[in-house]
């Protein structure tokens, strides 16, 4: 009897083990399928993003050939300038990808907040129809952060705000407020806003509501803010606008 029970136990154990193996294989397959789907989505997004600058480059080469054959120096210089700009456009796409996939340790230094905001604003063209309001409370507070990474974050948020008001114009406000330990940088627009169902997804990689773009900008921004010990939050109302708040730790000696 005990031998029979023992045989049954072995059989049950063997079935259980086989089930576990099958389950593990199935999980692995699912993970691989998810990875492949994500890679496919990313590859598709990147290739499409690169094709616009590639097309401009092709056009510039054509124009450059004409300029050279006609000894038109001004025309050649113009074509070369546009070519150079397309290198930046393509490079930004590649940099976004690399920044997202590799963990880069922040190079933290003591930074004055107004300088960060000013530097970020130089990277974005604010259209005439957009009214910019910058209100920096506690401008003397110092941050310990990676200035390059934070400039990137603010540039992204400001550019998004401008795009959200594309065509119609509106108000872009940048306000800062500090408490004992943190400074909040609040970037608000009066643009199209984000539908409620998308709020939870906007910091996810590859999620985008724009007609063009890979969907890495806000995912990178979140990662960079968190790498620098901060937090990023958003509130939004459709057709009223969005507010992004970045909270960063203050340099305690300040």
């Amino acid at each position, binding site marked *: 009897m005990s031998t029979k029970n023992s045989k049954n136990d072995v059989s049950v154990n063997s079935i259980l083990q086989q089930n576990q193996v099958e389950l593990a294989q199935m999980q692995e397959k699912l993970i691989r399928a998810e990875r492949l789907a994500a890679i496919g989505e990313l590859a598709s997004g990147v290739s499409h993003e690169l*094709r616009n600058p590639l097309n401009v480059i092709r056009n510039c080469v054509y124009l450059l050939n004409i300029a050279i054959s006609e000894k038109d120096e001004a025309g050649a210089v113009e074509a070369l300038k*546009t070519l150079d700009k397309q290198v930046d456009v393509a490079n930004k796409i590649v940099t976004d990808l690399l920044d997202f996939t590799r963990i880069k340790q922040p190079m933290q230094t003591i930074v004055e907040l107004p300088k960060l905001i000013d530097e970020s604003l130089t990277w974005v063209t604010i259209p005439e129809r957009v009214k910019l309001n910058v209100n920096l409370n506690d401008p003397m507070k110092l941050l310990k952060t990676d200035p390059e990474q934070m400039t990137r974050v603010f540039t992204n948020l400001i550019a998004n705000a401008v795009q959200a008001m594309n065509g119609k114009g509106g108000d872009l406000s940048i306000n800062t407020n500090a408490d004992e330990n943190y400074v909040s940088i609040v970037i608000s627009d009066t643009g199209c806003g984000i539908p409620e169902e998308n709020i939870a997804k906007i910091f996810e990689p590859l999620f985008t509501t724009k007609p063009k773009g890979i969907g890495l900008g806000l995912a990178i921004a979140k990662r960079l803010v968190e790498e620098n010990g901060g937090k990023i939050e958003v509130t939004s109302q459709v057709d009223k606008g969005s507010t992004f708040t970045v909270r960063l730790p203050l340099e305690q000696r300040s």
Partner: protein
Amino acid sequence: MMNDKTTILVVDDNEDLLETFAMILKRRGYEVQTACDGVDAVDKFKEQNFDVTLMDIVMPEMNGVDAFKKIREIQPEASIILMTAYSDEELMQTAKEEGVQLIIQKPIRIDKLIEMINETAGNQPILIADDNTILQTLQSRQMVRK
């Protein structure tokens, strides 16, 4: 010569692409105007007709397919070349249903574009796209140009 008379509207929200296409086409002797999105393109058609329209398919405000439909309401015989760096099967399907019959891959070769403009003026609308799957499907149906 058709080049002396052909009027072209170039529509794209990418300023550099818009500008360089316009410069090239002007150099080739066409009369060129530009529009920055579908709404702008439709507005331009309300003012005048164009022999050929070279239009991006994915744009803010109004996409190329919707603009194509609106333009066809204004000028039923309008020859429109749609182009995109994106693949949106639904949009492609709608484009085909609306009368778009040929597809060519982006980034587009200028000589091929000129050839198509000359062939297209007053003829069939063409969809310039870059999606290999769709290309292969349509190539098999002999609807595609590279």
